[in-house]
């Protein structure tokens, strides 16, 4: 290898916790108000199985996790153009807001008189999200985007049932949909009908053929699509769906592309979920937490989960008295830690800043699209502007040089760039789905593009054996699935 990429990730042979040496006698557990008596635990229930977890000193535990952290790549480490995931830098301000003891130390069971401040934050956020989406009313309760989708499908069932149309048992999704869409519809008991895309968009003839007054409950789509293309015929789509008496659902995963430019209400949608952890700025936490609030049009509002935060006589209350509600989908009131972060984010940027963020996100995606499209290719509307992301194919490189999207993704890690989403959407072969977001500088975008272009010319063997600069070399996922070692007792 000559000069090559400059990134080197830390690499420790850090033992597992259960392999660490015992190194302390005590941990702070509070001084009990009276002496513990073993007799308080019924003999039949008391633990006799030993607990394998060493007593390790605090500095060793902190070093353990610090080393693990150094073997982990986050958005603070480098570019993370993971398509459809909106991996943007989130203001550190958010973390300070969420750490405020006046929030972090508030018990969810506190009476309304003790939680007026938090209820006010939630009430304002409900109103703002309603305005942002063009929806009539918003619930903050769902814990994640997928739970928001499922909540919307439960609302869909309840709505049709209330009209004596429980026979509507099908939900239609395009073949480019996020996997959660069909999974959420199925989880709510619907049969999923998938329609083929045409030139990256909804095939209106296929949609017309798929929907019916007898069977169709809803059509779920995201706009812009997972290809990063805005669906121009959205109003016609809404007409087709509504003429069949079905509901139109907006997957809000791609909100980052439209904030301040259009909204789902204007487009004719009936329901929408938000990913507060994407556009509205909660760090992704290695997989979560998130929050998936849902907004709906007026006709669907009675079915929203309880409670909704309401304002009555100048006081904020948790309103449980909604007789047509589907009930609850999540414990307590939802992931409140995301509510305060989203509140801070919206407040910090305001209407103009949020709109500018959208513009730069789209500008950045188009820059990357433009720089790469000669080597990584697309035949789907190649000259139409992208929105938040672009999907390009490595099929040409596979055919000419024998390197696949998965190899390119692994090699990109060596450059200190997280891989794009690969092999999704399913309708593009050898897909690389790249979403740069508004928070990457041009310098960073150039680094991502330069790396991808360099990889296309590298020795195929070097690419196929990547990564070389990560904490470990290519991980054997097949073996992991064949003989699962799922806890340290399996070792």
């Amino acid at each position, binding site marked *: 290898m000559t000069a090559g990429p400059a990134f080197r990730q830390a690499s420790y042979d850090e033992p597992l916790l259960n392999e660490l040496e015992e190194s302390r006698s005590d941990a702070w557990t509070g001084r*009990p108000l009276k002496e513990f008596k073993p007799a308080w635990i019924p003999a039949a229930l008391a633990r006799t199985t030993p607990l394998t977890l060493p007593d390790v000193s605090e500095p060793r535990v902190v070093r353990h996790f610090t080393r693990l952290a150094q073997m982990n790549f986050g958005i603070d480490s480098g570019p993370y153009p993971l398509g459809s995931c909106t991996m943007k830098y989130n203001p550190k301000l958010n973390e300070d807001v969420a750490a405020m003891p006046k929030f972090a130390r*508030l018990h*969810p069971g506190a009476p309304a008189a003790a939680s007026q401040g938090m209820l006010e934050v939630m009430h304002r956020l409900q109103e703002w999200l309603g305005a942002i989406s063009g929806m009539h009313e918003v619930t903050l309760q769902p814990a994640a985007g997928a739970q928001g989708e499922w909540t919307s499908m439960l609302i869909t069932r309840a709505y049709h049932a209330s009209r004596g149309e429980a026979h509507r048992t099908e939900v239609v999704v395009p073949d480019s949909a996020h996997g959660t869409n069909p999974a959420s519809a199925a989880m709510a008991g619907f049969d999923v009908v998938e329609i083929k895309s045409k030139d990256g968009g909804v095939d209106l003839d296929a949609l017309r053929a798929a929907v019916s007054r007898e069977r169709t409950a809803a059509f779920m789509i995201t706009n812009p699509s997972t290809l990063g293309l805005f669906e121009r015929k959205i109003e016609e789509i809404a007409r087709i769906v509504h003429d069949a008496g079905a509901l139109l659902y907006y997957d809000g995963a791609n909100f980052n592309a439209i904030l301040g430019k259009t909204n789902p209400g204007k487009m004719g949608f009936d329901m929408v979920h938000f990913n507060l952890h994407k556009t509205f700025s909660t760090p992704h936490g290695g*997989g979560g937490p998130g929050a998936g609030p849902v907004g709906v049009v007026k006709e669907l509002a009675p079915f929203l989960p309880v409670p909704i935060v309401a304002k009555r006589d100048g006081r904020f209350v948790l309103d449980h008295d909604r007789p047509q509600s589907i009930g609850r989908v999540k414990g307590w009131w939802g992931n409140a830690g995301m509510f305060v972060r989203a509140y801070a984010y919206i407040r910090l940027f305001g209407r103009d800043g949020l709109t500018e963020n959208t513009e730069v996100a789209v500008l950045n995606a188009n820059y990357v699209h433009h720089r790469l499209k000669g080597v990584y290719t697309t035949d789907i509307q190649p000259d139409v502007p992208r929105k938040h992301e672009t999907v390009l194919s490595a099929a040409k490189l596979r055919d000419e040089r024998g390197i696949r999207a998965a190899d390119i993704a692994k090699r990109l890690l060596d450059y200190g760039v997280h891989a794009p989403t690969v092999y999704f959407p399913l309708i593009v072969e050898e897909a690389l789905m790249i979403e740069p977001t508004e928070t990457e500088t041009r310098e960073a975008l150039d680094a991502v593009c330069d790396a991808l272009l360099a990889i296309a010319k590298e020795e195929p063997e070097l690419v196929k054996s990547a990564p070389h600069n990560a904490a470990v*070399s290519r991980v054997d996922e097949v073996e992991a699935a064949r003989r699962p070692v799922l806890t340290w007792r399996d070792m």
Partner: protein
Amino acid sequence: MPFAANAAHTAEILKAIGRSSVEELFSDIPVSVRATLDALPEGIGEGEVLEEVAAILARNVTADDAACFLGQGFYNRYQPSAVRAIVGRSEFYTAYTPYQAEVSQGMLQALFEYESIVGELTGMDAVNTSMYDGPTALGESARMAMRMKGGDTFLIPRAISAEKKSILRNYLVGTPGRLAEVPFDPKTGQITRAALEAAAAGHRVFGAYVESPNAFGVLEDVLPEAREAVGEGTPLVVGVDPLAQAVLEPPASWGADIVVGEGQGIGIPLQFGGPTTGIFGCRREHVRKMPGRLIGMTKDRDGRRAFCMTLITREQHIRRQKATSNICTNESLLSLAFAAHAALLGRSGLRRLAETNMANARAMVEALRGVAGVRVPLFSGPYFNEVVAKLPCPAAPLVDACLEDGVVAGHPLARAFPEVGEAVALAATELTTAAGVERLVRSLKVRIPLAAHAPTAAAAGVPAKGGAP
């Protein structure tokens, strides 16, 4: 704007991509669907945001402001500074799901450790990295039980929260599954073997749930016999408090197939109810039917130990509508917090923390016995750190009144359990102080006589509708 990185380079980038304006990039959005954000406020500075949020949140009465005796799954526990330092490493908290295992070994190993620790506490062979919370983990367990065994009835104890029942009903929408309640003994607050057997015999049961401690804080003595009572071949789901498991035998020993629980009590702040982590584990033979993300140990190309997500063909991004669950974004960071706190405590610390919680609850109960008209604990079953206190007056207004004395005097139960009448659930933790208990007792002694003449909730026409805690 400080974060929209390329605002300064707009002209150059536009030139490079051959566009004349940013607006041109949005030219494909029809004019008829255009919308702006006029309804939102203008942006303000960071300092102003902090000031504004602090001013609004100042109206909250937190566990720092008043002696807090609230529980019901969420407990006022101490979060060590070291946990905050670990979770605050931005390599952890700004990462996405570890799809690229080679650059995500840190999170993967930490989550493998989380799975192992929960495996130690519950005896389960496979533990996923998280569900959204305890109640949704229970919802997923019912769906999994249905995948394991057909039928139409999921048995649940009457003595679980109304919130869990409502969530369970939603998780069973679109399936033949219905809920049937197993009553509690009004004296002990526990389900009995006879009641469990009777319920199991009366239906086509596809799963049975036992929770210990239950909504009354009571430990279920029936656990060692639950397997026999529900019958071989019927999935047994057990709900736990992970801290209590430090001193309790793992449910695996009682034949549990699935264990669920609320993970907040270890390492996770109250945060008005979320985010937290939902515990979900099962026996090895059921692993391919389980929901959620799993981390496994394997090797890299050079034979070094390595970790990766595994058995992913159960998940939505591969299996779509045939997935075992739709969950994608989960609560990984909170599972990391759980693992970090457990690591700092070690097995002795976990045990002592559990014992301290039990001891402080008993100190609270002894003090409350001195309050005229209060029956505590209302149920005679053994308890961990939470008990029910029967009151001689309406609970909700009493709790509001006690707030003025700097006390949050528990969680009213009348709406969820009308048969229990006016009562509160009160919890103690390692943060419960003698001064706090004294304040609770003093407040109740003053407020109860004042409230005793007010009508009860039922008499006042408050609907006994479920859902509200």
